[in-house]
């Protein structure tokens, strides 16, 4: 895991990892599109310039774009596998960011239902760490239960 994600809490590291993933992906898509669109619309003579043996700049641009898309998919998936999902699992199990590799083996009970991008589930352990009775169940069944539990607790006191 990247050292930048080892500092601070797991939540902050997860936030940073997801922000990096989003900005990189958006930057790639919008950058490639903007470059191609600006050249095509405002520098039209450049595209028809022949580079060598009949190959034009346009064809090289198409090849570059195809490569950029393939590389973008690969890097996005690799970043999710290597950084986002381990951090999200760690947030669920409430382990510190600099956890030992052996502790990384801990998995939630139902990994098939785990959604690394679902913040309500990712922060389930936050309520547990506060020690609020019933918060685990409330968080696991959605935010409305949390509000209801809090209101019930206030009414009881």
């Amino acid at each position, binding site marked *: 895991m990247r050292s930048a994600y080892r500092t601070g809490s797991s939540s902050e590291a997860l936030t940073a990892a997801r922000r990096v993933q989003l900005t990189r992906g958006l930057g790639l898509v919008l950058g490639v599109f903007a470059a191609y669109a600006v050249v095509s619309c405002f520098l039209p003579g450049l595209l028809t310039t022949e580079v060598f043996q009949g190959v034009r700049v346009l064809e090289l641009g198409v090849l570059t774009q195809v490569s950029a898309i393939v590389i973008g998919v690969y890097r996005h998936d690799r970043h999710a596998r290597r950084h986002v999902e381990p951090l999200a699992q760690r947030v669920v199990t409430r382990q510190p960011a600099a956890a030992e590799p052996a502790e990384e083996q801990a998995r939630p009970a139902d990994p*098939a239902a785990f959604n690394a991008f679902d913040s309500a589930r990712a922060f389930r352990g936050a309520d547990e760490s506060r020690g609020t009775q019933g918060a685990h169940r409330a968080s696991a069944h959605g935010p409305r239960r949390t509000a209801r539990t809090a209101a019930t607790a206030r009414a009881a006191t």
Partner: protein
Amino acid sequence: MSSLTDAGALAMSVFLVFLAGCLFLSMLNSPDLRDAAEDFFAQRGSSTGTGGTGGSGTTGVAGALRQGLALTGDFVSAAGLLFLCGIVATGGHDGILIVAATALSPLLLKVLLAERLPAAREFGPGRSLGDILARRLPPGPARRTAGVATLVVSVPLLVAQLVPVGGITAAVMGLPGEHGAMAGIALTGILILACAAIGGARGSTLFQTLKAVGFLLLVPLLALLVLARFGWDHGAVVSRAAHGSGIGEAAYLASGRLFGTDLTGRLDTLSLALTVLLGAAFLPHLLTRLSTSRTAETARRSSSLAVIAVLLLCVTAGVVGHGVQALAGAQRSGGAGPHGGDDLLLLAAGLDGSDPARPGSSGTLLTFIACAAFLAALASASVLLLSGSAAVVLDMGRHRHAHPGKRNPGAPGARPRPLRARIALGAVGAVCIALAVFGREAGAQFWLTLSWTEAATVVLPALGCALLCRRFTLRGLRWCVYGGTLVALTLLALSPAVSGSPESVFPDAHWAVFPLHAPGLVSVPVSFLLAWTGTRLTPSPSPSASPSASASASRTPSSSSASPSATSREQGAQRPSASGDLLTGTTRGRD
């Protein structure tokens, strides 16, 4: 008996057998009438829904492969592929820019929203756009707004599917003239409607998968045939296409072929490319497909497959587009509709020597392409019909106040039955067939532009803000959906696509005061601005309101939507689930 030996009759017979096969497959995949409408709108086991059968085989590589193929089918519609081939044939390098935008759009969806759309188990799968928005905003009004957004995007896209495939059906079945075109559209529409109503989500997913596999085989095959015709030299194809265009190689390869070389024309090309990039990625049925994934990992894998598949299709569509111009020439391409919407027929005719304009002269390749086009239109129109029907039944019906995944299944009559869903599907389909029959002169490209513009203007800001912005409120959603729709429709009505040009809907009228054919360059920022303004102008919750009152207001879906204060309704984003939003980066760590 002698007519049966005729090549045209043989082609028609093959086409009819193909239609019967489609209907048979729909019947095989028909959902049980006793099931709830949720099973009609989403495939059982493909989701996180508690009502599912556990989703055996829907996770892992096999599940991602199936989901990815279906997603590829959702991305590339019949009209979209015909449009891409045609715009490359007639637009030259401008067409390549549009194809490049199309290839980038699934990657945009992947990086922006794909992994955020699958819901947690308590929310259930997103069977409509309203289900996705209702995770963050008050369900009733958010669903109603999402239903409107779905309909304004899906109906034009459905009309765009029916117009070209109706023409292809008329050509294969030998129905000449205007009445033949109308009959072809009506016949195709009724058959598609029947298949969608019978098959439901399972049938449409099967057709989408078949369509994606067919496209991934057919379009590269056509590209290879084109390249083989010209000695495997793409430069020779482009040169021949430039020669066939009749304007010379320099002019054909120059920019500005679509809308002119002046600044307005270049901005127009840029606006169309931006509209395609943003609109093709955020169509409601695509989002619904991804939101029914079991996990974020499945959504990520399937979207990766879809990105690569769409990329392959776009590259080969570019070759096919140049091949159309090279083989058919400008004179015949000019008769293929604005920007060559029917150019694939011309390519088939050029490759196998048949004539699509003459009844009874259908060749084998032409019939094969007609079957593929019908299957593609059937698959695309099925999911669009289901999307429209879900918008009517789930998002605008009487159950719209239910929270996602909490539809009170135990209450009598609480779960909408497939009959209601099928009636809604029939109503949406009838409207679309009527629009396609009477609006066929507008051409598929106009309806596609309208749909993509609406998707980029309405769905992208609504969903992007709802899922990525913590403070987004219901007022912001309403402003961007209703205001964005109004802005997009107004700009499009005042554009040269509707009046003032020979290829417009009303060529004899002239009220075009807005210079861009596709207004996405203006309407998308305006819609984002409306969303931001509506959110900023939402009144803050009064400090005098007790926390218990606000808690009880958000306790149940029915109470929160039936009798809330106006402030609590507008403050839809104040639900606790948004408090831990990781995406904005504003949440402090809780460790």
